[in-house]
């Protein structure tokens, strides 16, 4: 059973005096249960709108189908909301209340015990500042309190929208570690929306990429990376110019030596790296280095979304 299943979901914002704005355009999204699923897309691609639709905050256009933990949204949302924790954009708490009181009020509303509040404050390392008012918190502390609130329900599905915002490097590391552990615990599915491509690459098992309100790529991170992979090889030999001539004669596309030392080549579109090794050795050029140029998620993302930036 997928944790999230969206089929042909559209959302058009209509504001008086402005043309309609299509935020989601027949979006299909499947997030399988378990693990960490990344949610990636340029600004305005529809990530936050998707999350708001999932949580029943925004009403989608008629026609699509949404299921959250197998319950239809929004009709069945009350049945599963107790198993869904969410942090959407900035944490929304009452500024005049302490961090602890803000969590206690949410816990009371859902019948969660006070002991659980203390556990979650401990988890995000806020117990010492729990009696301080929320408005006195730093951005990072606010974000940590938001994460604590999302964890209160010990959710089966945890939706985190930009959870690293405002955190210091140690905080970012801890949040990522926490997300990884949650994803690996076998009972929690984490949907992580982030603009930090490295974060998605480090933390997520699978990823969906949104562009212009549509899901343009989805699958395990390694597969999505492979779509952006170039098949390029970085080759280092004692005489790069001569080696380039040999490879060009053999039909390979070779870029001029890229390194100032004149010993490094870039060979494009190589289906079998062993062939390069064999040809160069046959002509007396012995390799000092042969490195596949691996695609990172940023490259894949830009290639898939067609974003020139």
């Amino acid at each position, binding site marked *: 059973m997928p944790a999230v299943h969206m089929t042909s979901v559209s959302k058009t914002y209509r504001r008086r005096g402005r043309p309609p704005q299509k935020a989601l355009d027949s979006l299909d999204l499947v997030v399988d249960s378990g693990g960490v699923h990344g949610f990636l897309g340029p600004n305005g691609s529809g990530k936050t709108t998707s999350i708001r639709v999932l949580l029943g905050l*925004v*009403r989608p256009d008629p026609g699509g189908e949404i299921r959250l933990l197998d319950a239809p949204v929004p009709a069945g949302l*009350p049945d599963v909301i107790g198993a869904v924790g969410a942090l959407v954009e900035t944490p929304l708490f*009452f500024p005049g209340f302490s961090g602890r009181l803000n969590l206690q*009020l949410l816990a009371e509303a859902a019948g969660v015990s006070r002991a659980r509040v203390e556990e979650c404050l401990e988890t995000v390392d806020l117990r010492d500042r729990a009696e301080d008012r929320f408005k006195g918190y730093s951005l990072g502390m606010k974000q940590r309190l938001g994460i604590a609130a999302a*964890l209160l329900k010990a959710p089966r599905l945890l939706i985190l929208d930009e959870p690293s915002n405002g955190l210091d490097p140690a905080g970012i590391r801890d949040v990522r570690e*926490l997300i990884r552990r949650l994803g690996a615990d076998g*009972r929690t599915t984490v949907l992580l929306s982030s603009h930090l491509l490295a974060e998605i690459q480090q933390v997520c098992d699978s990823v969906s990429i949104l562009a212009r309100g549509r899901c343009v790529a989805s699958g395990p991170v390694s597969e999505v990376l492979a779509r952006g992979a170039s098949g390029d090889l970085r080759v280092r030999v004692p005489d790069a110019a001569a080696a380039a001539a040999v490879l060009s004669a053999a039909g390979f596309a070779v870029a001029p030596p890229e390194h100032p030392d004149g010993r490094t080549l870039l060979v494009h579109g190589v289906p079998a790296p062993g062939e390069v090794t064999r040809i160069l050795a046959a002509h007396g050029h012995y390799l000092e280095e042969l490195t596949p140029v691996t695609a990172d998620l940023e490259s894949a993302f830009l290639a898939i979304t067609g974003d020139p930036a």
Partner: protein
Amino acid sequence: MSAVVEQPPAPARDEGYVHPSLLRAEFHRFRSRRFIQVLLAAALVGWLAAVVIGLFQFGEPDEGDLAAARAEIAQMVEQQEVWRQQCLDDAPPGEEESFCGPEITAAEFRTEDFVGTAPFDLEQSASGGAMGFGAAAAALAFLIGATWIGAEWSSRSVVALLFWVPRRMQVMGAKVTVLAVAAAALGVAAQLGWLAMAWILRIAVGTDDPLPSGFWGDLLATQGRCVLLVVFAALAGFGLANLIRNTGAALGVGFVYFAIVENAVRVMRPEWQPALLTNNAAALVAPGGLRIVDYENFTVDADGNQVFEEFVIGNLQAGIVLGVVAAVVIGLGVLLFQRRDVH
């Protein structure tokens, strides 16, 4: 977050997830709001100040006070007699008495009404005091109602609550219920405050004249209507702030209505006065309702007297008008909350 990065163990569903208790949480939230606490503390200080002022204002007159009062009455009677004599001189012959009226004597005046320090008279003051306390509590309740939801919109914590309770009607219903109960409690507390103040004044500086039969029943009815007014005011404040989604703007709208619109109506369209909220509020709490005289419109009767147009707003009619206004304002806000996207 360096101390612990493990997710806390999930609570067993049977232990951690007892039946949701949104109402209890909302009562807790209401009690914890600092601004509301400050307003209630200010009300308590106001009550203490009123008691102290009352203790200085009322008292048993001494012989000097009574002598001064009698002298003032005598001077007034003398003045009246001078005017009457002038009237009699100018009146058409044979019609002096009907033209100038009977002679005024000192026996027609109560000495107590002319002494600067009079004893507190519960019978005379009970109804007015109850209405005064009711009006003050209603103003306070309007402010509390507006800030109760306005601050929630300002911090957007009402949106956060939807992550926990996605049924929006349930969320609003809980908030309205909590406010209505709190407003009723405030209204009752205000009336108890008035009774306590009246009791202190009666014991310390009041008359001990026996109260007429039916006194307590009439007072209780007035106080009950005052409590109803406090609840309506709180709901109206809530509804307005929920519609506009901002406390300050809601109070601004309230100010414009009460300070400008109502006065403009009284001057330009006096016949619309029965629809004004302040008139209906007064009509709700005043024993027997409110009689409004429109001095702009009159007819002349057979004797040539001007008969001004009058409007009478009864208690029930006023209650219905205020109830409908509160229900419409709240209903509209809740409907928009139910239907609109929330960001």
